[in-house]
């Protein structure tokens, strides 16, 4: 998301599941949707039946790969080398979609002359701070803040030429040296996928954790995005770059800001240093151009939704009530790993693990356990007694030494409560309870409501309460037995004076006359009646035949099914592929024919008339100031560089073949503590690359599946995939128990000997070596019906091995590459 946002304007799946069926070539990379997003294969299957091709790029041969026309086995963490090579191929062979690139990307923008890239580092690097000064990473302007462009793409410092120059390094030979993919296969893939560059053809990229869980994750996705832009695959049916979201409602939860750096609707969280006042916040966070000029309306409506009548123009709409981040990690707030360190340091004293099980899922578990043990209290809200709830009696721990007081609250399952779930395709879908909660279990909403009401009461009654107003004045009015529809209606937004639901976010105001809990959702519940709840709409009609189903649920924003859809037509508003038109300009009628809700300025705000195509050309990516997608990201919105270059994972058995002087991401955050140990580069103690993955049959940390006998029987025990060669070399037979260890810890797993994993031959030309890769699922632990093995005194959680080094932007840990050793247990 931290990659898609700065590139396209929104951090979300651009198309949606059904739309996969419209694709001519589906490229799955860094994801395994057959296993983790099974339903996608309904639509992929349809596409394949219509003659589409499927490419799967993965270090392991997966159940997705089993369905592929072309399977590319690449070394984990090397995607950038492959994709820069593909982009290079597309540029060198003139296979890119020229009109698209000129009109819809910032390829023609000219970059400041100070900008440079040498030996693996961009200009402005400060080795002491391990950070960049971003001032040169910007557009050359005409002096009035208007970027200079060269639509011929010939200017040596235009984005296109800069990319062309750097990417020319990424030859198929180099790609092979980095990725281990034979160069013939690289070329085969380049040929197949670049065919989608023809106008009218659509290629889609599906990615997930295989792309993100790297210290270079953001840039890996940047490399996919650039290829998609060059081929003109964004904003069209069957195209897009589709981030397959994880947890069933993770899209909804991030929309609602279950992230450390934003408030609902993807607005930055106020920061103590940068935004001491509302004025600072609005000034600094509102860009001069793009749809985001409306941010004050959304932000102030949000404050109104929170404090309603207590939020007045006089008190800056209660802006001061809002806690600001700033104390947290380097002033950046607490993402997960920094939070663990703060707990370990004693800065954070209590933790609510609400619907999560970090005692299995967190990276470098031994550090996590230490952090949990340092808490005063821990409250787990869960369906099960998870590893987190019993972390104090895990194998090897002495409960007497752990002082943390633990509370476990039983929560109702998703099928036992009413509410909405937002899927990966941004569809908000309403659900009804199918069963009554078990025993004492209550819904999450019930608990939150109770908690809020109790806190309000405490703050009201306790005279010694410090800073009572933010909680005391909270607008909290959902009843004792909270009504989820009231919450939904508040999210949609209403006018404060007459309590009318707003039609959508265009009706929001920055004067405090409207309230809205999450502006991007605005419009999904536009009336007070339950029938107005569009998330519950179940119209199965598909007038366009493109699988858009506009009457089924509600897709944010304003029910757009495919975002950036201005790019599905040319400058004149005519579709690249007339058979698959999302919108089309009818010159005679002087209007847009619309199959989907236009995602551009199609109405002239002055005249309220439909605007001709020329007028909306520069709003194709209307959330970005340029109005165009970014091949080059200015101003350090991505911290390690404006475009992707290959760095190795932190733990790696090879010297970086592309930039030997710059082994890994220069701005990566490396934690130093007794429990944060790392293997050396090419460490002889840890000679194998390890990666972790998911299985269809288990859910995440396993609480949801290891406790269900039907699921448990499918994958009852922890295992490790190893190649037949490795097995032979080590005398390992299938099913043997192995002890796998990293610099941080060890875990037991049974040997699954399979040709689906293989060694990689990589390295600087002339210095190639062959290194085996092993792969482990991460669903096992030490609590529940099954744990992962027969021994009750073992912890089968793989994250005892993984490092807590994070991507510099998202801090997502590098779960997908680290070094291990293994021996027979």
């Amino acid at each position: 998301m931290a990659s898609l946002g700065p590139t396209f304007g929104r951090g979300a799946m651009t198309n949606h599941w059904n739309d996969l069926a419209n694709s001519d070539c589906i490229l799955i990379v860094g994801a395994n949707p057959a296993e983790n997003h099974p339903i996608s294969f309904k639509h992929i299957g349809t596409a394949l039946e219509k003659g589409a091709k499927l490419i799967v790029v993965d270090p392991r041969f997966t159940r997705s790969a089993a369905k592929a026309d072309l399977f590319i086995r690449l070394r984990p963490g090397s995607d950038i080398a492959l994709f820069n090579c593909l982009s290079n191929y597309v540029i060198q062979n003139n296979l890119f979609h020229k009109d698209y690139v000129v009109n819809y990307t910032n390829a023609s923008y000219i970059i400041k002359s100070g900008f440079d890239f040498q030996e693996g580092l961009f200009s402005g690097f400060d080795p002491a701070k391990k950070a960049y000064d971003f001032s040169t990473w910007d557009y050359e302007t005409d002096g009035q803040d208007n970027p200079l462009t060269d639509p011929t793409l010939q200017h040596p410092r235009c984005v296109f030429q800069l990319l062309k120059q750097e990417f020319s390094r990424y030859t198929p030979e180099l790609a092979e040296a980095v990725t281990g993919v034979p160069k013939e296969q690289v070329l085969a893939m380049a040929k197949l996928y670049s065919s989608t560059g023809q106008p009218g053809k659509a290629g889609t990229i599906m990615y997930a954790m295989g792309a993100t869980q790297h210290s270079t994750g953001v840039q890996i996705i940047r490399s996919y995005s650039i290829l998609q832009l060059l081929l003109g695959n964004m904003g069209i049916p069957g195209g897009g770059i589709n981030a397959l979201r994880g947890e069933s409602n993770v899209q909804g939860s991030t929309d609602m800001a279950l992230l450390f750096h934003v408030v609902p609707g993807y607005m930055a969280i106020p920061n103590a240093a940068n935004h001491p006042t509302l004025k600072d916040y609005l000034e600094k966070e509102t860009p001069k151009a793009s749809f985001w000029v409306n941010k004050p309306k959304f932000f102030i409506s949000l404050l109104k939704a929170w404090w309603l009548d207590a939020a007045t123009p006089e008190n800056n709409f209660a802006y001061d009530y809002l806690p600001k981040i700033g104390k947290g990690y380097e002033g950046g707030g607490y993402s997960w790993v920094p939070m663990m360190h703060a707990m370990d340091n004693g800065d954070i004293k209590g933790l609510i693990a609400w619907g999560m099980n970090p005692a299995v899922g967190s990276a470098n578990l031994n550090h996590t356990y230490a952090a949990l043990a340092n808490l005063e209290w821990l409250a787990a809200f869960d369906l099960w007694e998870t590893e987190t709830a019993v972390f104090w009696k895990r194998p090897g721990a002495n409960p007497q030494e752990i002082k943390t007081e633990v509370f476990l609250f039983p929560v109702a399952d998703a099928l036992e409560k009413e509410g909405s779930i937002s899927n990966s395709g941004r569809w908000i879908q309403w659900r009804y309870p199918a069963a009554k909660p078990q025993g004492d279990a209550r819904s999450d909403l019930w608990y939150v409501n109770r908690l809020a009401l109790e806190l309000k009461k405490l703050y009201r009654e306790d005279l010694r309460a410090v800073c009572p107003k933010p909680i005391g004045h909270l607008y909290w009015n959902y009843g004792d037995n909270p009504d989820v529809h009231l919450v939904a209606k508040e999210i949609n937004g209403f006018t404060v004076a007459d309590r009318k639901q707003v039609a959508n976010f265009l009706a929001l105001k920055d004067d405090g006359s409207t309230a809205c809990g999450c502006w991007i959702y605005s419009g999904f519940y536009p009336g007070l009646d339950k029938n107005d709840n569009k998330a519950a709409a179940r119209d199965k009609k598909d007038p366009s035949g493109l699988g858009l189903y506009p009457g089924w649920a509600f897709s944010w924003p304003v029910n757009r099914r495919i975002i950036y859809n201005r790019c599905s037509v040319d400058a004149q508003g005519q579709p690249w592929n007339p058979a698959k038109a999302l919108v089309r300009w009818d010159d005679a009628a002087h209007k847009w024919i619309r199959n989907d809700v236009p995602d551009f300025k199609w109405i002239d705000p002055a005249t309220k008339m439909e605007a001709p195509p020329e007028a909306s050309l520069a709003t194709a990516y209307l959330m970005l100031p340029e109005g165009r997608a970014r091949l080059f990201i200015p101003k350090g919105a991505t911290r390690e560089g404006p475009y992707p270059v290959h760095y190795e994972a932190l733990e790696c058995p090879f010297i970086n073949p592309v930039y030997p002087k710059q082994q890994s991401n220069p701005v990566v955050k490396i934690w130093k503590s007794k429990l944060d140990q790392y293997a050396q580069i090419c460490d002889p103690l840890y000679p194998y690359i390890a990666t972790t993955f998911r299985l269809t049959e288990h859910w995440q940390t396993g609480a949801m599946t290891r406790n269900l006998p039907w699921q448990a029987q499918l994958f009852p025990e922890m295992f490790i995939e190893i190649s037949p060669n490795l097995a032979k070399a080590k005398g390992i037979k299938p099913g043997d128990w192995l002890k796998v260890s990293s610099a941080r810890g060890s875990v037991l797993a049974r040997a699954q000997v399979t040709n689906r994993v293989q060694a990689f031959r990589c390295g600087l030309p002339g210095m190639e070596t062959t290194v085996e890769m092993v792969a482990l699922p991460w669903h096992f632990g030490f609590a529940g019906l099954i744990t992962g093995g027969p021994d009750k005194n073992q912890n089968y959680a793989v994250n005892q091995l993984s490092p807590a080094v994070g991507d510099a932007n998202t801090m997502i840990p590098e779960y997908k590459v680290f070094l291990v050793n293994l021996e027979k247990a």
Partner: protein
Amino acid sequence: MSKGMLIDTTRCIGCRACQTACKSWNNLPGVKTTFSDTWSNPRYLSSADFTRIIFREDLHADGTVGWHFIKRQCMHCNDPACVSACPVAALQKLANGPVVYDDSRCIGCRYCMMACPFQIPKFQWDSAVPFIRKCTFCADRQAVGLEPACATTCPTSALLFGDRQELIAAAWRRIHQNPGRYHPEVYGEKIAGGTAKLYLTAQSFEALGLNHQGFRTDLGETPQGVYGREWMGKVPFVALAVGGLTLGLYAINRRRAELAAAEAAAKHEGKEV
């Protein structure tokens, strides 16, 4: 109209949702399993698992890997050997397709298990009151207009429920429209007299090495039950023939003995006969 299910294994992603859905609908107990090297788990069908996915990995000569996911369950034969075999007619083929089992009749002889060419019926070995168990084609769901649980659950439409004849036609359409993608045979169309479950595969079951995992390719087109029925058809005639012969010979013997006795008596009495 007889119903069928088209199992397009090229569409199957091996997610095993069908396995779980089947257990859920049929209220089957979870079983305790251990690590399975092939991923297939449980490793065999049983009275607690009416269906399962076989994972088949193969290494091609060029070093590439193939991986196939094959669902197994009762085939619901048109003319089922199990039905022919059962001495108490506990198994029945319904007109709409399913081969169903009546708990109250079964004596537990397990002849159906021996007879089934696809090795489907399973026995509740661990119970003191054991019954035969196998996929029911969700006859109970079909009776109320629902599709089988596995087909309803399958996320990829690898399991298509419908009219058997139409599915056969659809299967052949797929084969013809995607040359190279399918082994040109609809397994189940003819084998063993035809089955309600129909398979499309990328390679023949023989090539997949599943010939002895319940997908025999050498069964021919005659339903196995025919052999038993032919035999039974002869039984009355054999009985009559043997009976007649026995009775005849017996009568002749007896007549001879009487004559002999009479002759002896006559001799004894000195009379000429």
